[in-house]
């Protein structure tokens, strides 16, 4: 009987304790957001959609080899010998003509492994995350451009040359790159 009473009382009491907590939460401010109208500010390192800056790609194919899911397909051919020399923004000469650079974002696993080996940092992940479509072919991003405007001067030489009027248009590359991956 005593056990019975204690059980009943404890059942009743723990219910009240729980109710007290939910009552308190009734008046705390919500933590959720109204998503499309209010957006969470993303931290700068967010890894979302991949982007490849075609003007800086030297066609080395390291990203293709690093990708664990084979979502990058690249076709590069030798530039003709008589073509004018061009450079990537960090001063790497572009020896190959990148005919095709496709990223299938429907396969991408957002692991960020492709961005590390890139010698010119032309492939990187952007904080853009709203790219859902109802057509899966819209997830094949074709980065190769027919009419790309390349740097025709070596940016390093230009920067070093005395009296260079303006800095090169493309942003500077980061100084050091972590090894590996």
């Amino acid at each position, binding site marked *: 009987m005593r056990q019975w009473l204690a059980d009943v009382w404890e059942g009743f009491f723990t219910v009240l304790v729980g109710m007290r907590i939910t009552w308190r939460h009734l008046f705390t401010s919500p933590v959720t957001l109204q998503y499309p109208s209010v957006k969470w500010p993303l931290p700068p390192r967010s890894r979302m959609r991949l*982007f490849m800056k*075609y003007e800086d790609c030297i066609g080395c194919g390291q990203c293709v080899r690093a990708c664990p899911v084979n979502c990058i397909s690249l076709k590069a051919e030798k530039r003709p010998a008589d073509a004018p020399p061009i450079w990537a923004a960090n001063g790497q000469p572009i020896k190959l003509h990148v005919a*095709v650079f*496709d990223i299938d974002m429907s396969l991408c696993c957002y692991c960020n492994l492709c961005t590390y080996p890139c010698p010119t940092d032309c492939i990187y992940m952007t904080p853009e995350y709203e790219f859902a479509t109802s057509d899966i072919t*819209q997830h*094949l*991003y074709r980065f190769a*451009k027919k009419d790309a405007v390349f740097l025709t001067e070596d940016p390093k030489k230009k920067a070093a040359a005395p009296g260079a009027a303006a800095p090169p248009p493309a942003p500077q590359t*980061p100084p*050091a790159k972590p090894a590996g991956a």
Partner: protein
Amino acid sequence: MDPKAIHETLVAKFGEKIQGASLEAASPFSVVAAEAIAEVAAFCKADPDLAFDNLMCLAGVDYPKETPPRMEVVYQLLSYTHLHTFALKVQLPRENPAVPTVERTWGVANWHEREAWDLLGITFLGHSDPRRILLPDDWEGHPLRKDWQDPEYYNGMHVKPTQQMAERALAGETIGVGPFDFTPPNRHVKEE
């Protein structure tokens, strides 16, 4: 007990049936004759000095390029009493590999052995429930074998994706979006 002592205990008990050992490796192990594994396992569990009451992992490995080609089953043992670990290894022929089950010693072996059968095709003699576990029941073949070829179809479905979009694009189909004439943010986030 250190691996050497464990190995010696096993050799003293089973003699010829312990065929070799590698005691300096990162995970030391003894090689046990296939037909003896069940009794060795039972001994390992029952012996108070060894007291391997836990089978941490049971893995099958396929070595087609070794001479002779073989399959291995590796039993990773742990004793919760003494907190020492050891491994037993069984070497099997690649054709019709079969080894006695140890599920009566460690209950967990039931599923591990089913998995080894499922993915590598190693038969466990005397197993109480020799069904596939991860793959569908009507799957043919054992994918973790090194000579495994993906089938074209399974139940009328393409096992491989028909053709990836990138291949279609390379073949000249006009799909996909681009080119992109802007530079989105985040380019040099690596340096910060």
